[in-house]
């Protein structure tokens, strides 16, 4: 008896839910995204490259967006690992509050984190005021953009590593210890290899979110052309100058990068599942 075929018929509602899912997905997401690609296909290849890739102002914006997102994701991978480690392995007072607070950047509107970080890191702010005498300006510099992206990416870095650490077999570590490995050796030879895929997917998620982020960066960046102008802002500027094709071309480049990120993350998740 074909059990699979029968099971499919037992539960009702496949046609209507699937139909609604596909219609709504197409109308809200797929067709609008396709519109962007169709719009930019009105440009010839040379036009596309000269507007979206080779223009010095656009290049500077990509370098800033990708560079700042990379630095922020690296810092997040490092501190995110420490935070996840502390939350999984140790007990301390207020742990549950700390654990809940990690998701704050995810729930907090980006405009709110933007104006808050700017006020905090401006030369008159609580933290900026301490750094300014040392000759380290943060607000309105690329460093400020990194600060904003650290806040935005933090939950991704912590929440991808946390479950991997929770699921790790303590027996493996105990075996390594009983065979004479020191604590650092256990960390580098047993723990890190097992959770490396998780750290990398956290890094990639934070990086992908960082290159597209707008709200929090917009306020702290200062938005000076060639210096602190991020790629998403450049799209808005092109739109305001009625250069819709230029805006669409930059949008396509950023989308292609984002979609490659999805591919990498899916590969990483496949890898980590195989590792277990």
């Amino acid at each position, binding site marked *: 008896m074909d059990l699979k075929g029968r*099971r499919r018929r*037992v*539960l*009702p*509602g496949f046609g*209507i*839910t*699937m139909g*609604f*899912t596909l219609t709504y997905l197409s109308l809200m*997401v*797929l067709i*609008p*995204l396709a*519109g*962007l690609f*169709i719009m930019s296909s009105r440009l010839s290849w040379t036009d596309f490259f000269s507007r979206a890739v080779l223009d010095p102002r656009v290049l500077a914006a990509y370098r800033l967006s990708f560079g700042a997102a990379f630095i922020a994701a690296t810092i997040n991978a490092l*501190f995110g690992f*420490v*935070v996840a480690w*502390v*939350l*999984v392995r*140790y007990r301390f007072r207020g742990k*549950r509050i700390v654990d809940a*607070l*990690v*998701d*704050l*950047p995810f*729930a*907090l*509107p*980006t*405009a*709110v984190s933007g*104006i808050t970080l700017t006020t*905090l890191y401006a030369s008159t702010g609580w*933290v900026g005021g301490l750094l300014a005498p040392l000759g380290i300006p943060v607000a309105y510099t690329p460093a400020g953009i990194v600060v904003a992206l650290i*806040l935005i990416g*933090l939950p*991704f870095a912590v929440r991808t590593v946390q*479950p991997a650490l*929770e699921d790790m077999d*303590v027996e493996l570590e105990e075996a390594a210890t009983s065979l004479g490995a020191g*604590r650092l050796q256990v960390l580098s030879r047993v723990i890190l290899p097992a959770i490396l895929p998780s750290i990398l997917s956290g890094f990639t*998620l934070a990086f992908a979110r960082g290159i*597209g*982020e707008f709200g929090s960066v917009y306020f702290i960046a200062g938005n000076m052309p060639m210096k602190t102008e991020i790629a*998403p*802002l450049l*799209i*808005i500027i092109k739109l305001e100058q009625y250069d*819709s094709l230029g805006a*669409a071309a930059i*949008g396509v480049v950023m989308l292609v990068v984002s*979609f490659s*990120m*999805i591919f990498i*993350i899916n590969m990483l998740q496949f890898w980590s599942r195989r590792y277990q």
Partner: protein
Amino acid sequence: MAGAVQLRLHGSQRGAYAARTESPLVRRILIGTALMFLVLVLVLPLVLIFSTAFSRGIGVYLSSFTDPDALSAIRLTLLTAAVAVPLNTLFGVCAAWAIAKFEFRGKNILITLIDLPFAVSPVIAGLIFVILFGSWGFFGEWLAAYNIKIIFAKPGIIIATVFITFPFVARELIPLMQAQGSEEEQSAIVLGAGAWQTFRRVTLPNIKWGLLYGVILCNARAMGEFGAVSVVSGHIRGLTCTMPLHLEILYNEYNFAAAFAIASLLTFLALVTLVLKSIIEWRSARQTAFENPES
């Protein structure tokens, strides 16, 4: 790509007892480092928001909300969430039902496509709707002929928000319902329950916490979205400004107390979301422990 940090419904505490293996000094340094980092990145901004909001007294704080432009921004934000959240909840439940309860080819591709809006920069989310509905866009002339305004008007803000919050409920429900399987629903149907009855009496009680979390997360994002809404809004005061856009205008006018007053309201909403999430995680962990006491 996971833009949403998923609910950890069955977080195990197994690792908690391995603490003995580090010396107390190392343990304290690591806890200290983590806490310092979190204070700098998360706590300090929180304190700043509320202290700046109240910096010019409670009178100024309250008057920030009774200002007509602020009231209109609050109304538009509520309207946007009132459209986007139910639509995306309906979609999330339908998508999760089709994906989790049935086998079909291309399932993984469908899940990836549902996640797409997470991978799209908010600015690009706004851009695609300008390209569709803007005055020079694909439907621009047609809309102008019928005198329908979408871009630089409220419909554009709502559509962009629906796009941004599209995957939130589906993302919470799909893994949850996949893990639960469909045996219980099949028994209900075989015993003669109708489709709607089966969903309401069998499926809904099983997914209610995940569903609730998806809905509040979707709501938080719908009310707080800035980038996408900023592109399609046109920033017309009192007409097409949501709360985050109103906050931007106040901030750019150096009206910091009022800007942070609006910010404090949005922050309060975010904190409520976090508290609800913790409660839901705690309740669902208890439910799991109650149903499988041996695990």
